[in-house]
């Protein structure tokens, strides 16, 4: 008996003090949370609220997240990219211009860009420049001018129109200016795409896929993701971990795609562009959304105009490119077919809206005599580029707004 005691003591496994384990976990998470909060403060210059750029919307898919913690993308309480706050009920004596659109108006940034310009702040988008021009115009003396930037990245006419009809119509704008043409007309349409439902306007928005997974899917994986994404709205540590895991997962997928590339079948022939009939059908589809906006605006006694957004890739030969823009072009895949289709879409865009009696602002001609750097990447603008576009919009639509003022008087 006495001989067996040492051996049983040597084989005994000391019990795990679970209270200590959980206390250590809690302490570790608290330290990591404090560290994450400090890092985000150092990065953004303000306390952590959220790292999610968007919020779901019942109409128009998403809106900008007012709680986004970012050093340059300031979003106001209504989801507008702005340093000012706007009230839905228009104050008396106010001329309100509402800008709708996608990332060109938002001033987003693509992967390949001119890094020397940094981030385009909310004070350097087209909206504040246009607001300053209108406010300084004696024609509008005595009026408070509001130019509201309601752009959301990658909004097509599908999302823009539903957001306008459901929400922004009720903001009582005097003038609505619809940007975002690039998200409808930039991507090359091949023969057969329209019939197959594969054009930009016919396919699901990428965020819609996330919506289906995060909101409608009832799987365990979706439940776990919802849980930690909810946590990430309240914890800087979880928000950083969430972003980190997304980057890691995306990199792993990209790596696997690169490794799988040699086994893919090479394309047999260069894709043919859409036929004339397909181009007309695509423009009809665009028109169905644009017509709805025009009809609603007229019924609500709001003026409406549309903006054509040029692309750097299709500007070679029609704009004197700066050295910076030329350096960007090297990374872009330009072909004559793509350029011809983009130009044909521009002309059809004019014909459609001219026929509907809606003014079109098109900077294409003005770009022909502008050697300065306007583009910050394949399609978005530098701060000076935004100022340039604002001046074109101002010159062309000033008279329209002045007529509105005259009617009010």
């Amino acid at each position, binding site marked *: 008996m006495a001989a067996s005691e040492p051996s049983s003591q040597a084989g005994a496994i000391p019990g795990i003090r679970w209270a200590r384990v959980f206390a250590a976990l809690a302490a570790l998470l608290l330290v990591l949370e404090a560290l994450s909060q400090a890092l985000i403060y150092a990065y953004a210059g303000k306390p952590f609220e959220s790292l999610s750029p968007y919020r779901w919307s019942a109409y128009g898919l998403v809106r900008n997240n007012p709680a986004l913690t970012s050093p340059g993308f300031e979003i106001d309480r209504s989801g507008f990219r702005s340093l000012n706050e706007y009230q839905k009920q228009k104050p008396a004596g106010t001329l309100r211009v509402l800008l709708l659109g996608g990332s060109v108006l938002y001033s987003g940034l693509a992967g390949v860009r001119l890094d020397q310009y940094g981030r385009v702040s909310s004070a350097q988008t087209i909206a504040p420049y246009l607001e300053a021009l209108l406010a300084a115009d004696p024609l509008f003396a005595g009026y408070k001018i509001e130019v509201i930037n309601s752009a959301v990245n990658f909004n097509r006419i599908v999302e823009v129109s539903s957001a306008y009809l459901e929400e922004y119509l009720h903001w009582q704008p005097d003038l609505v200016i619809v940007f975002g043409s690039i998200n409808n007309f930039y991507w090359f349409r091949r023969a057969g795409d329209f019939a197959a439902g594969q054009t930009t306007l016919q396919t699901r928005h990428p965020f819609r896929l996330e919506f289906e997974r995060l909101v409608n899917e009832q799987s365990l994986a979706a439940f776990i993701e919802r849980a930690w994404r909810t946590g990430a709205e309240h914890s800087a540590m979880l928000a950083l971990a969430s972003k980190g895991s997304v980057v890691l997962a*995306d990199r792993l997928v990209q790596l696997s795609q690169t490794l799988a590339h040699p086994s893919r079948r090479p394309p047999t022939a260069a894709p043919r562009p859409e036929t004339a009939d397909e181009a007309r059908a695509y423009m009809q589809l665009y028109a169905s959304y644009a017509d709805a906006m025009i009809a609603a605006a007229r019924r609500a006694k709001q003026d409406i105009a549309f903006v054509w957004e040029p692309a750097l890739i299709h500007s070679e030969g029609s704009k004197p490119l700066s050295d910076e823009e030329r350096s960007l072009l090297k990374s872009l895949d330009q072909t004559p077919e793509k350029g011809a289709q983009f130009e044909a879409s521009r002309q059809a865009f004019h014909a459609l809206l001219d026929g509907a009696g809606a003014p079109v602002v098109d900077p294409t001609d003005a770009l022909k005599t502008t050697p300065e750097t306007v583009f910050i990447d394949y399609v978005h603008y530098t701060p000076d580029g935004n100022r340039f576009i604002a001046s074109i919009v101002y010159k062309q639509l000033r008279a329209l707004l002045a007529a509105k003022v005259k009617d009010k008087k």
Partner: protein
Amino acid sequence: MHIDRIPLWLPLLVVALIVGLALAWRRGWLKLPLTQQELAVTLKILFILGSVMVLVTLRNAIELPAGQFIYGRF
């Protein structure tokens, strides 16, 4: 330095911090109120939680390849 997402120095700093803490513990400069076994259990719990997060995200990344997300994911 990344603009749209978290800056690149951030994960490097976190890794350096974790490595520094591990070294300090190994050399006896940092006293933990846990036995080696309890520490292993604590790290396993953290590992499992982190793995679940990465696996769920990976499953979503396979379902929705990153190429589509030119303006960042949710």
